[in-house]
Structures are given as structure tokens and as C-alpha cells.
């Protein structure tokens, strides 16, 4: 292998996509698929090193935003000194790590026909992305065979089972060390064991990390653009569509969701609005509307605009949970054991809302789940997931009266925590004397 002599002085890297392949050249790749492919390309490197890669939402017009590795699809001359040349020839390039503005940036030739598991007439985006991210992490071209860092296009690779060749693993581990508890590598190979590099000096964050993540008790849980965000205190964790955590380490809410007041240390509820994909945050008696990860200028606004009153006529001053029920596309807000339903297709951007007639109703109508849930999301086939403490209950699509629902562990099933030692079986929250079992209980 060959190293460029440059490396990142930190292990937790961020990435973003600033443009996507044009549909006319790459008709079989939509944005979601591109993001998934790139996620797996990064994973190839993080599987064998302590590196983590977290995707950042970004405004593509802001060229300086987007973190360490900014991915774009460009054509011909694109102002970096390495013009592309139309279809064929050069496919992509990436800049080595460093402090330059362009360091880590990865450019793909938009004139190629990029594909996922395509035939020989197209170019496999995953294979090329793994190679280019190798450059973005500090690796140069290798003459070794096999190695993903060979300069020539090698055809498609199986994204799900892809593993770096020994040459590439040793190279990345030379730069960043071996993944702790991961693919330790090399025990079955006759090569000298490489010393780990000295620990790098990284920015120190306050990290609750493992214990907090695995203890549950999330303030809010939200399905935003197909990813599930778990908010707790001043941090959040993020789980992608395939239920992989972007990072075991939490992210500070204030570093990602821009526009919340300083000192925000508890989010009550969050959901993504169906009509325009804006993201609504509830904190105390106020709410914010976000476009992507930035709050709109007119916010916060008072919760009273939602027109929610309890059965006894008292204005609601906080929201416990919020979600869009995929079954009917309506918005549901929960507070103090009651819930309200809204049809947001009729709502104005600014202005008073009105709950649907006949609300509030008792949260206990959602049978089999705790009435004072932490939060609710719609997920997968439109099922409703109710989170409480460190457990979650699934109400199948459209169902309201599913008497016995076995809860599962949020920590184990969502946040990659080890299964707790076997104890007594979990109970039905509304009937504590009734025993139910899951696969471990």
C-alpha cells in the first residue's frame, strides 16, 4: 500500500452530499440510493478502523458547509485543477486529508453512467466510492492486487458483503489504528503486527456515550426523512433506515439543529410534517419549525396556536409526544394522558390551528401501550412505535385495539447495546400482573 503522508487528526469525521448524479446519465440511482451506497462505502473503512462517519444535512449552495468529506457529482472543468473528461477515462477523484478547504472533498464525474449492481455498460458507484474515500482518508494508489486502491476501475463489488483487502486494511490501520473489538485483523496472516499510532488529540466533547444511550428514557424520538433520531438531554443519536447507528457517540443538539435557544437541554417532542417535510420541535410551551436543520426565522411561537385544550378546558402547555400516523396521514399530539388529532393539509404556515372535532381523547384508547409514552413514530410498513423508558411497543398499521403487545428493548433493538442479563420477563404496562415473554425472556 501507499500512504499520502496526510491523515485526519481526529477519528469522528463528517460527510455531506452537495450534488447528486444527474438522472439523465444515471437513471437508476435516486438520492436515497446514492446516500445508502456512500454510507456503505464509508462503512468499508470504519469496519476495520476506529473511524466514524456521520452524514450532515447541508444546504448544497453553501460550499463551506458539510463537514470533512464533501461529495459532489461534477462535469468537465469544475474549478479544482482536475477536470473530468466526459464518459469513460477519468471517473472520480478525492483530495487527501488536511486543513485545506478542499481536503477530503470527493468528486465523481457526472458524465458517467453511475449504477448500483449495474451491467458492464455502467460504472458501479460503490466500488469507486470506496476507492475515493480511501484517498479522502489519506491512502494513495496501490499497485497491489487485490486492493481497492488500484487506480483502475475494477467492476462492481457486492456492497453487502464487501470487505477491504489485506493491503487496504493494513494501510488504514497504519494511519488510524485498529478498531477496538472489531475486525482485529491479521491474526491469521503472516505479516508483522503494526504498532498503533499514538492517540490523536481530538476536540473533547462531553459524551454521555454508552451508559446514557443504553439506559433509554429518551425525551423525544422522531422519524425524520426515514431516519430515527433519539433525543436525550442535550444530545441525540441517529439511526439510519437499516437500523444502523451513525455513531455510538451522541451529537450535541445545538451543533446540528441550528436555531434552538442556547442551553436547550430537553426536547419534548419532534416530528416531520407530512405536507412539506418541515420538522417541528416542541419545547415547553413553544414550538419551532425547521427547514432541514435550521429553524425558520419566525420561531419560536406559542404552543397555544395549536388550539389544544384539555377536557377540562385548560390550554395545553407542553407536548409529550408527536407523530404522523401513516395509517391516515394525520398528525397526533399527546399531552398529559390525552391526545389531539390534526389535519395539517389544511393548516397555514403561520396561524392558529384547530384540532379535529371530538378531541382530546384519552391516550388509553391506544390499547396495549403505555398512556404516558415518551414519544411515538411511524416506521417501516406504517406501524406505530411507542417508546417509553427503555422499551417500545409496536401497533400494527391501522390497529388501535391490539390488546397484548410485547414490548422490546429500545437499547438492544435500536441503539446497539448489549442485551441485559436475563431477568424476569417484561410486563404489559397496563396490566402489570400479566406476564409476557420475548425471545430472551
Amino acid at each position, binding site marked *: 500500500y501507499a500512504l*499520502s503522508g496526510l491523515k485526519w487528526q481526529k477519528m469522528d469525521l463528517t460527510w455531506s452530499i452537495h450534488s447528486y448524479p444527474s438522472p439523465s446519465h444515471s437513471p437508476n440511482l435516486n438520492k436515497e440510493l446514492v446516500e445508502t451506497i456512500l454510507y456503505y462505502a464509508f462503512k468499508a473503512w470504519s469496519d476495520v478502523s476506529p473511524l466514524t462517519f456521520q452524514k450532515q444535512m447541508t444546504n448544497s449552495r453553501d460550499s463551506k458547509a458539510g463537514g470533512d468529506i464533501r461529495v459532489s457529482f461534477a462535469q468537465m472543468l469544475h474549478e*479544482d*485543477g*482536475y477536470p*473530468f473528461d466526459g464518459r*469513460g*477515462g*477519468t*471517473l*472520480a*477523484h*478525492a483530495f487527501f486529508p488536511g486543513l*485545506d*478547504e*478542499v481536503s477530503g472533498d470527493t468528486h465523481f464525474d457526472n458524465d*458517467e453512467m453511475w449504477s448500483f449492481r449495474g451491467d458492464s455498460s455502467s*460504472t458501479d458507484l460503490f466500488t*469507486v466510492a470506496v*476507492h*475515493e474515500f480511501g*484517498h479522502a482518508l489519506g491512502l*494513495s*494508489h496501490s*499497485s497491489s*492486487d487485490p486492493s481497492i486502491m488500484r*487506480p*483502475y*476501475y475494477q467492476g462492481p463489488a457486492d456492497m453487502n458483503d464487501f470487505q477491504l483487502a489485506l493491503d487496504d486494511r493494513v494501510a488504514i490501520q497504519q494511519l488510524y489504528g485498529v478498531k477496538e473489538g472489531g475486525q482485529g485483523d491479521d491474526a491469521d496472516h503472516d505479516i508483522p503486527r503494526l504498532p498503533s499510532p499514538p492517540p490523536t488529540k481530538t476536540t473533547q466533547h462531553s459524551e454521555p456515550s454508552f451508559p446514557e444511550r443504553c439506559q433509554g428514557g429518551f425525551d423525544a424520538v422522531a422519524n425524520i426523512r426515514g431516519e430515527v433520531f433519539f433525543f436525550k438531554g442535550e444530545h441525540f443519536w441517529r439511526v439510519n433506515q437499516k437500523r444502523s447507528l451513525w455513531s455510538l457517540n451522541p451529537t450535541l443538539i445545538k451543533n446540528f439543529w441550528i436555531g434552538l435557544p442556547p442551553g436547550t437541554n430537553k426536547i419534548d417532542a419532534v416530528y416531520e410534517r407530512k405536507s412539506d417535510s418541515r420538522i417541528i420541535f416542541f419545547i415547553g410551551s413553544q414550538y419551532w419549525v425547521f427547514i432541514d436543520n435550521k429553524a425558520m426565522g419566525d420561531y419560536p411561537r406559542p404552543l397555544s396556536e395549536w388550539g389544544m385544550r384539555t377536557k377540562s378546558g385548560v390550554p395545553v402547555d407542553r407536548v409529550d409526544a408527536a407523530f404522523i400516523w401513516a395509517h391516515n396521514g394525520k398528525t397526533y399530539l399527546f399531552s398529559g394522558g390525552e391526545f389531539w388529532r390534526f389535519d395539517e393539509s389544511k393548516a397555514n404556515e403561520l396561524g392558529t390551528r384547530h384540532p379535529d372535532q371530538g378531541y382530546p381523547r384519552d391516550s388509553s384508547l391506544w390499547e396495549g401501550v403505555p398512556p404516558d409514552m415518551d414519544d411515538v413514530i411511524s416506521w417501516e410498513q406504517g406501524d406505530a412505535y411507542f417508546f417509553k423508558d427503555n422499551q417500545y411497543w409496536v401497533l400494527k398499521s391501522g390497529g388501535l385495539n391490539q390488546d397484548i403487545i410485547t414490548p422490546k428493548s429500545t437499547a438492544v433493538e435500536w441503539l446497539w447495546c448489549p442485551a441485559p442479563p436475563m431477568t424476569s420477563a417484561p410486563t404489559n404496562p397496563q396490566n402489570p400482573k400479566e406476564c409476557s415473554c420475548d425471545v430472551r425472556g
Partner: protein
Amino acid sequence: GESDQYSRALDWLSRYGYLPPADPRTSQLQTKEGIEKAIRIMQRFGGLQETGVLDNKTLKLMSTPRCSLPDIIGSDEMLKRKRRRRRRKR
């Protein structure tokens, strides 16, 4: 066609770091030995038999789609980066 192919190959070797780029200010020319050596290095890097001549396999490899970063990062590449950094600072 043959001379065209040859000049394209020289361009390719320069672009990917096997040959120093010809400098019009000093009328620098590549020597025959220098080109042959560059082809050999390129062939070795690409896993081909080292012949030092532009045979079919070598030309085929040169036309294979690839990453646009150079294989050999030398002084020219470093100069290019320095220039880019200076431009950005300005």
C-alpha cells in the same frame, strides 16, 4: 495515427505522474530512455509485463477508466497543490 497514439500515451504518463510534464518555458523534452523507464514503471504498477514499449496490453490499460489522481505523486503534484493554496489565500 501512431504518432497521435504516442503523444496521447505521453500525455497519460505525465498526467498520472510517471513522466515530468514537458515545460514549454525551458523547451524540456522527454528523453527516449526517460519515456521507456516511465512505461516500465507504469507497466509494473499495473501488473503488466515490463517491456518499456507501448504494446497492446499497455495501451488497453491506459484506456481503462480510472481515478484521476496520479499514481506517482512527485514534485509537480506538490507544486500544483502549493499554487492552488496560494490562489485560495489570495
